[in-house]
């Protein structure tokens, strides 16, 4: 039994937690991070990083298959899943090593163990107690399922999907959100037959509708099947496979069912409610400065309702450290945080969809233009299609940018600045994008909205 004091006690060493600790020590505070599993959390070990490694292997497979189009003679001989795993694990372990070194170099105490909030400013790990002037809760999320849908055997979540040591012949994916379409994309590239089951009327249903529709078209062309607008009813499994039944009676047989219906907050049995923290449907409720209902206790990352993204977690972690240090950081609303879906083709967006912008600013007050990548030289060279749609307030700023196409994820960085800085299309128009880049497509849409289209009518 020991007791240690810090300025900030962080429960959970994922993106949100370690970012808070790093920023805290930069500001001259002392910090401890309590982590029961591995520093880096979901993103590094079971999320962003390993999935993007799989997606890169998938991209390489697609390039190899299509290489004749570009005058490169190759024979595609299939996927070596053991080598894919070795590559994925290699990336994760080297980043993990880097992260551990970083926290060490920063002088952050990292405690290995399961923590529990035991009062307004203390976290207990076994018999040890860590007391802070402030506490940051950052315990992250887990793969949810649906009521009555049990995970196990051939019914898996992203954790198991990542580590499969074989490529399923046929796989069903429950959920057409980010994680579902990313795995669908990988498995299709690896040669599996894939069917996505989504209850809402579109794939990536949080995105601009025109983008969802283009993704559906692209997936159809790739041979990825999907069922939209009908709810899942149940699944049965046996040695041979699974049978998924929808509410309309349609059935799908497959070797595996991936359940990708969202992620729930890890907040149960951690002492949160006992400490008086307001919890709603499992999420920790905070004010817009990320402070919980208990003064001095903050929450960050996937346990806070809203977008579940690693960079939002970083941002919230940093925000809390600065808030505690009295720097009065600015709030970035979720709508202005960029989102990327790394399937092929990629989807990326920031700001309002056109429909939401019309709601907020009035339909008459909003204009948009969607530039087709068919007019973009670099996209033609890469052999990709898609579009970039920009939404503006008339005589006002750009409030939404929505993209689909191979490699467009990187283009969201520019759009993020434009939207957050409230740029008018007229502010961007004088700065012609480098040629030939995919970024020119954003430029063309902006030029059009500024009343001066170049390669558009």
């Amino acid at each position, binding site marked *: 039994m020991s007791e240690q004091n810090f300025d900030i006690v962080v429960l959970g060493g994922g993106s949100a937690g370690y970012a808070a600790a790093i920023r805290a020590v930069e500001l001259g505070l002392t910090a401890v991070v309590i982590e029961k599993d591995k520093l880096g959390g979901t993103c590094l070990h079971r999320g962003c990083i390993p999935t993007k490694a799989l997606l890169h292997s998938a991209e390489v497979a697609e390039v190899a298959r299509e290489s004749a189009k570009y005058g490169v003679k190759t024979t595609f001989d299939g996927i070596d899943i053991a080598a894919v795993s070795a590559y994925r694990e290699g990336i994760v372990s080297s980043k993990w090593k880097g992260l551990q070194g970083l926290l060490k170099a920063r002088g952050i105490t990292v405690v290995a163990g399961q923590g529990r909030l035991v009062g307004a400013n203390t976290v207990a790990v076994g018999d040890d107690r860590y007391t802070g002037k402030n506490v940051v809760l950052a315990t992250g999320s887990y793969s949810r399922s649906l009521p009555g849908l049990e995970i196990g055997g051939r019914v898996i979540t992203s954790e198991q999907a990542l580590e499969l040591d074989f490529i399923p012949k046929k796989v069903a994916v429950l959920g057409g959100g980010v994680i579902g379409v990313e795995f669908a994309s990988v498995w299709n590239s690896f040669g599996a037959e894939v069917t996505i089951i989504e209850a809402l009327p579109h794939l990536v249903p949080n995105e601009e509708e025109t983008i969802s529709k283009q993704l559906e078209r692209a997936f159809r062309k790739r041979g990825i099947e999907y069922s939209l607008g009908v709810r899942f009813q149940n699944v049965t499994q046996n040695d041979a496979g699974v049978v998924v039944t929808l509410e309309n009676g349609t059935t799908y047989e497959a070797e595996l069912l991936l359940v990708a219906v969202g992620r729930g907050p890890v907040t149960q049995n951690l002492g949160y409610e006992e400490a008086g923290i307001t919890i709603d449907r499992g999420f920790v409720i905070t004010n817009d400065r990320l402070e919980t209902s208990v003064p001095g206790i903050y929450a960050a990352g996937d346990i806070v309702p809203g977008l579940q993204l690693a960079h939002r977690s970083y941002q919230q972690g940093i925000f809390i450290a600065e808030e505690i240090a009295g720097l009065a950081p600015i709030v970035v609303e979720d709508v202005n945080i960029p989102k990327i879906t790394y399937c092929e083709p990629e989807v990326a967006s920031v700001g309002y969809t056109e429909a939401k912008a019309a709601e907020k600013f009035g339909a008459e007050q909003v204009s948009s233009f969607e530039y087709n990548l068919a007019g973009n030289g670099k996209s033609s060279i890469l052999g990709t299609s898609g579009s970039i749609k920009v939404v503006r307030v008339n005589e006002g*700023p750009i409030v939404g940018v929505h993209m689909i196409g191979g490699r467009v994820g990187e283009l969201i960085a520019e759009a993020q600045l*434009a939207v957050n*800085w*409230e*740029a*008018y299309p007229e*502010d961007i128009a*004088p700065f012609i994008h480098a040629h030939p880049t995919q970024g020119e497509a954003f430029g063309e849409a902006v030029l059009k909205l500024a009343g001066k289209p170049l390669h558009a009518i």
Partner: protein
Amino acid sequence: ARLDTARRSPVVSPIVRRLAREHGFDASHLVGSGHDHLVMRRDVESFIAEQGEPATTEA
């Protein structure tokens, strides 16, 4: 006056425009020191600094 509401100097940076707005004026009402009177960040910042110092403002 340094700030002239009839003036329409070019402003191209949303950051510069916002900085002025947050201090209660329109950047395009300043004389810009950039190419062809483009209002630069330094113009807005120096104007704010002047305004902020009571010693230099008229009573």
